[in-house]
């Protein structure tokens, strides 16, 4: 064979081989089906990690879903939704370990749906190190700065620093920063005395330091981040986290303050739990309890000495409540601010005066373990116990319930306006025949009538599968019977709820009538989301998180005979 012929043959072969294309990963990679759907107010987000994308499904009239893809970082770690359901945060660990310059850094992708135009957009923040947990600011959208903090979790890389946190100010764009301007996000290491972060809690806006006027020092509004480790509590001043260094030896931001719970002389350690922050800006108080003693730790952030890097320092106060607390809250009583602690082992609650440690025990009818303040939904309309006169203004009402397995303790309303004088008259019990698993809030409603409702989900495996709609104002608990233990979802507009099991059974319960409207999905239901359509109306999206994902979509307001199945959602070409 001549050289020219060989050349020609080789060329033909090369062209043929080049023409053989390998399919894009979007057609070949398997689909992860666990914990990958997230409900937003205006859509449902599905994380398609194999293709480094989030598919946002939005409803249209006619029960049609339209979809849009957003690129996310490599190797999805976790995701969370903002409290107002407008924004999805997706944390990715990137390509670890990075071996080439092409490998991707860890990142946070923020996908936000504009509440008026319903148009989604996204932005990406790169991070120095991979972290697996997210803590979202509960005041998202309500303050000037919107914070997100990424922190370490249990499953991690070969070697990592568990005390590293990365603070994002999502109201500002990604920035590498400079010597005098902090980057966004900013990473910092929490000083550790052997502990690792377990829980992060944001403060409301606080005017710190407390008692500044009497101390003759200035005060200013502040957001704090409390980090509960397994042995101590750290306090990070979020408002000043991006401050430039004050000297060549310091870094960006103010140093955190660590509240150590162990002296270091003993082997036993105490792990802080249930940290709560007083909502009154000027008080500057927070409290927590531990898993190893019977104290309630109450702290106030008072003015610090001038040499301190922070302008506040916590002053600690310990109070023994006679048993291990299961839940605490700051409450306003007729005698002033107290820390209320539930002590199931003594079937009691204890009110703690945070400055003097004076205690007021209140006997309860059952070992209640959980407490939620419902003052905002009852407000001045709350009647006193036994239907008597309303409690004094500016006092709280708490809802108590128990999540202990097998304990059908019902629920109790604790009227704190009459607690100190007549504690025995402050509790009103509503009987619920089954152990309670959780109490679901009905979101801020379009109709104020529903703001006094709570939904009591009962424990699976209990007798039947009832759940209860609790009317705090009327003091009624209406049972809804189901044949199986259902999963419950409250619509974000607060007008209805959905009960479903993981077959094809579904029911709409309108809070107006509480009459269940049974429905059938054409595909098995993994989870349901009640979303606002891009044009008008609302859709109930029942996701089948199997195979290539499908969704049966109903008109959420009038769902009968409106079901339309949208199949192969993750096969749509991007």
């Amino acid at each position, binding site marked *: 064979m001549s050289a020219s012929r060989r050349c020609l043959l080789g060329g*033909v072969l090369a*062209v*043929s081989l080049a*023409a*053989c*294309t*390998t*399919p*894009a990963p*979007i*057609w*070949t*990679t*398997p*689909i992860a089906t666990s914990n990958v759907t997230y409900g937003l107010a205006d859509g449902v987000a599905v994380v398609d990690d194999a293709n480094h994308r989030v598919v946002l499904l939005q409803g249209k009239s006619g*029960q*049609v*879903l339209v979809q849009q893809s957003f690129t996310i970082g490599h190797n999805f770690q976790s995701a969370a939704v903002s409290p107002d359901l407008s924004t999805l945060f997706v944390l990715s660990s990137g390509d670890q370990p990075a071996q080439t310059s092409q490998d991707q850094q860890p990142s946070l992708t923020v996908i936000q749906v504009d509440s008026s135009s319903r148009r989604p957009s996204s932005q990406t923040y790169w991070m120095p190190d991979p972290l697996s947990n997210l803590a979202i600011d509960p005041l998202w959208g309500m303050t000037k700065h919107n914070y997100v903090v990424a922190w370490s979790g249990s499953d991690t890389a070969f070697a990592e620093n568990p005390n590293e946190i990365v603070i994002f100010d999502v109201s500002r764009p990604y920035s590498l920063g400079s010597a005098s301007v902090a980057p966004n996000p900013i990473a910092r290491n929490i000083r550790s005395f052997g502990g690792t972060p377990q829980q992060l809690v944001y403060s409301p806006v606080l005017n710190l330091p407390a008692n500044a006027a009497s101390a003759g020092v200035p005060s200013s509004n502040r957001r704090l981040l409390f980090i509960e480790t397994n042995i101590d509590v750290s306090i990070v001043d979020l408002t000043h986290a991006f401050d430039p260094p004050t000297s060549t030896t310091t870094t960006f931001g103010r140093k955190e303050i660590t509240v150590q719970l162990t002296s270091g002389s003993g082997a036993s350690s105490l792990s802080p739990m249930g940290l709560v922050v007083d909502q009154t800006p000027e008080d500057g108080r927070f409290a927590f309890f531990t898993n190893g003693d019977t104290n309630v730790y109450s702290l106030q952030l008072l003015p610090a000495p001038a040499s301190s890097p922070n302008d506040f320092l916590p002053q600690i106060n310990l109070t023994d409540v006679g048993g291990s607390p299961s839940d605490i809250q700051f409450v306003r009583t007729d005698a002033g601010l107290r820390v209320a602690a539930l002590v199931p082992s003594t079937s009691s609650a204890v009110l703690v005066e945070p400055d003097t440690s004076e205690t007021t025990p209140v006997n309860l009818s059952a070992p209640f373990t959980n407490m939620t303040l419902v003052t905002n939904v009852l407000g001045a309309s709350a009647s006193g116990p036994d239907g008597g006169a309303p409690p004094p203004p500016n006092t709280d009402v708490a809802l108590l319930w128990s999540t202990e397995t097998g304990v059908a303790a019902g629920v109790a309303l604790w009227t704190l306006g009459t607690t100190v004088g007549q504690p025995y008259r402050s509790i009103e019990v509503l009987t619920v025949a089954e152990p309670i698993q959780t109490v679901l809030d009905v979101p801020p409603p379009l109709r104020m009538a529903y703001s006094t409702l709570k939904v009591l989900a009962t424990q699976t495996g209990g007798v039947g599968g009832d759940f209860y709609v609790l009317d705090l104002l009327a003091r009624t608990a209406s049972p809804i019977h189901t044949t199986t233990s259902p999963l419950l979802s409250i619509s974000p507009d607060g007008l209805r709820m959905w009960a479903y099991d993981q077959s094809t059974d579904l029911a709409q319960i309108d809070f107006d009538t509480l009459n269940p409207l049974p429905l059938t999905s*054409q*595909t098995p239901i993994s989870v349901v989301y009640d979303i606002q359509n891009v044009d008008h109306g609302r859709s109930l999206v029942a996701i*089948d998180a*199997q*195979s*290539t*994902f*499908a969704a049966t979509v109903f008109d959420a307001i009038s769902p009968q005979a409106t*079901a*339309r*199945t*949208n*199949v*192969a*959602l*993750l*096969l*749509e*070409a991007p």
Partner: protein
Amino acid sequence: MKPLAIVAFAFPAAFAASAGAQSAPPSSPTPESAELPRPVDRREGNWRLEVGYRGSFVSDSGYQPFSSNGYFPEFSMAASHTLLEDGRFSFAGGLAWDVGSSSSEVRQVDPASLVMQRFTVTLEGRIHFGRWGYAYLRAAPGAAWEKVEVDDAASPAPLEKTNWLFATDLSAGYACLLWPRDAASKVEPRFWLQGEGGYGWVAGQELTLEPALPSGSPVQTTGVDLGALAMQGGFFRVATAVSF
């Protein structure tokens, strides 16, 4: 269709002119040298049947759900008849049918398949080299029928779409005479082996698949849009043929 018609008629015209220039007998032969013009050795009859294999390299991304490598195999049949002959050149017209399929498992869960049948009119200009066979250029306009199907577990019926689309091939090839290779002027069955390469073009379409539900079904299902598919790309064909 107009440009193709021009191509169809241009081939024989060009071949005829070229053949005239190369092998036309003298216009006024002298009696001494008069002898019958030597027949051109085409070694084939007027009819020709082909059966072969066609492989296409489809680079369009819309084909990726149906193939792991972008290759599309087809069975190929054609029949042609020589319409014009002039010197070393001839022109044949015919019909061809290619059928092939490809399947894959999209995202490792949903079986997906593509079936395509291509019906074309072949317009073929040939230049003959005696017992060594002939080279040819072929244009083949026609239509392609595509059926795309995805079986999704959540769908009450397979998701599918069928469509007729305009199609054209342009190719060049060579046919080798296998047997018998003698008896140049004798019209008898002869067997050929041929190979060609070219470019196949099928109009694109949007793969909006819908469940194939019986009419009147109360089930409302929205299908899936797999994007656009255009079965276009280089191809080769090897075939055996018989002429008579």
